[in-house]
């Protein structure tokens, strides 16, 4: 959390991005939607929910940059010397990364709820808790990639390109049915994308899905997807952490 607050300019930058996405792209794009589509009436709300998830994703990725910062300043060796198992270390960092993302995205979620509203508090609570798993999983993924690559430049490039694919091949900006209409391949990839699980869950929690054709397995399928995502990256993260760092530290 303390490390995260040092990035105040980046936090300001992400807040500006959020405002620009909603105030400009969200409003204008919602007027571009074909009025014959059932989505047309609520595209703005749909998009705002997607922007929240995109924001949660990008702030959870920040933890990977901290790893490089620590490696540069020799903090890594100190962390490895602590009486904490590797598993606890990775798990702690994944959870810490996820929680601090929530601290940052929390006010934005409140703004989003003000715009979207929500009808069923229980659904929203379930969705909200499941989003923690998403944030922890993304942090775990970011740590895994950072430790596997060990190069801040390559990490930055890879995460940028990966971010472009993972966000666009998800339901953050458009529904699954439209992706299906565009390309079977895009739809298939989006179906197993954690951003899709998180976006759909958030919309289910806020009640937007009542206007859309949602998967009948919601929210169970999305929650299971996020649980698998979280455990996969925690497990891979621990394994890679141990293999890449034992007996030689960062170098």
């Amino acid at each position, binding site marked *: 959390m303390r490390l995260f607050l040092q990035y*105040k*300019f*980046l936090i*300001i*930058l992400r807040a*500006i*991005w959020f405002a*620009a*996405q909603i105030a*400009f*792209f969200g*409003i*204008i*794009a919602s*007027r*571009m*939607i*074909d*009025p014959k*589509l059932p*989505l047309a009436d609520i*595209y703005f709300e749909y998009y705002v929910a997607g922007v929240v998830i995109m924001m949660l994703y990008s702030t959870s990725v920040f933890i990977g940059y901290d790893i490089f910062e620590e490696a540069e300043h020799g903090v890594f060796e100190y962390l490895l010397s602590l009486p904490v198992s590797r598993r606890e270390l990775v798990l702690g960092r994944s959870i810490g990364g996820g929680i601090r993302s929530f601290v940052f995205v929390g006010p934005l979620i409140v703004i989003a709820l003000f715009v979207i509203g929500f009808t069923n508090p229980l659904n929203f609570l379930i969705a909200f808790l499941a989003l923690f798993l998403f944030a922890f999983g993304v942090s775990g993924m970011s740590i895994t990639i950072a430790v596997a690559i060990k190069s801040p*430049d*390559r990490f*930055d*490039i*890879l995460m*940028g*390109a990966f*971010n*472009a*694919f993972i966000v*666009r*091949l998800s339901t953050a*900006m*458009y529904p699954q049915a*439209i*992706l299906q*209409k*565009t*390309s079977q391949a*895009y739809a298939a990839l989006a179906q197993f994308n954690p951003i899709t699980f998180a976006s759909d869950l958030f919309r289910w929690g806020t009640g937007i899905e009542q206007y859309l054709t949602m998967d009948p397995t919601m929210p169970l399928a999305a929650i299971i997807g996020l649980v698998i995502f979280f455990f996969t990256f925690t497990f891979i993260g621990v394994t890679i952490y141990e293999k890449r760092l034992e007996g030689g530290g960062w170098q």
Partner: protein
Amino acid sequence: MKAILHVIEHDFRNFFRYKWWLIGLISMNLTDLFIMALVYNQMINPNLIENIRDYFRFFAPGVTIIGLFASAYMIGREINMEVRRQIHYYMLSLPITRLELAVGRLLAGGLRGMVYMSPLLLTTFLFLGFPSLPHFLVILGALFLLATGISGLSIAMAVSTTSLEKFVTARGLVYYVLFFCSSIFYPLSLIQDLGREGVMPQPIVVLAEFNPLSSGADLIRSFLLGTPPFTFNMIRNLIVFSTIFATTATFAYMKIIQRK
């Protein structure tokens, strides 16, 4: 003139050191075009873009402008880094006048933007059709003006602060305001309609109308798609933008790198 060419060569060598960064950037631009634009094709109101058939064709010139902006802006990051690490003292020690140095950096930034943008422009031509030779030359000239203006804007911002964080934050603000308040993603007529309805504040509409990114994207569209119609205002906006920021950047760079 020879000195300016040396400065341009220096900056081009630096540019190609970032080849992986460029590959990453181009992959982001292409995902915007081949995923986002194709999906939006299925959702867009057909009446809105009836003249151009689909959103993909509308958006392709926009992606070209996004790529041009991002790559021409890179020079600012390098100059900011040089100022922070005091490498500019080395530049000042070279047998080159301050003016040549400043002009060389400015032109290098613009030309790098043009080089990066060329595969995106070619992709646009492949999907939208090739323009006639006079139109092609006008497009290249207009994009060079835009790239030089962007390079000037980034240099002016880079020398205004020695803090990378402040530079990155300011860059983000400029990016988002210029990208979203422009006709890159949506037709200018739609923003004007929203302004008339009172949904979009009037200053935003005016900004979108005079935004050089709108002029650049619409100029390509006017020649390749026939809509919006070409007007000399597009060229005027680009000349004004380019002149203001090229001049500001040249003098700011000359003045600030000599400061103790």
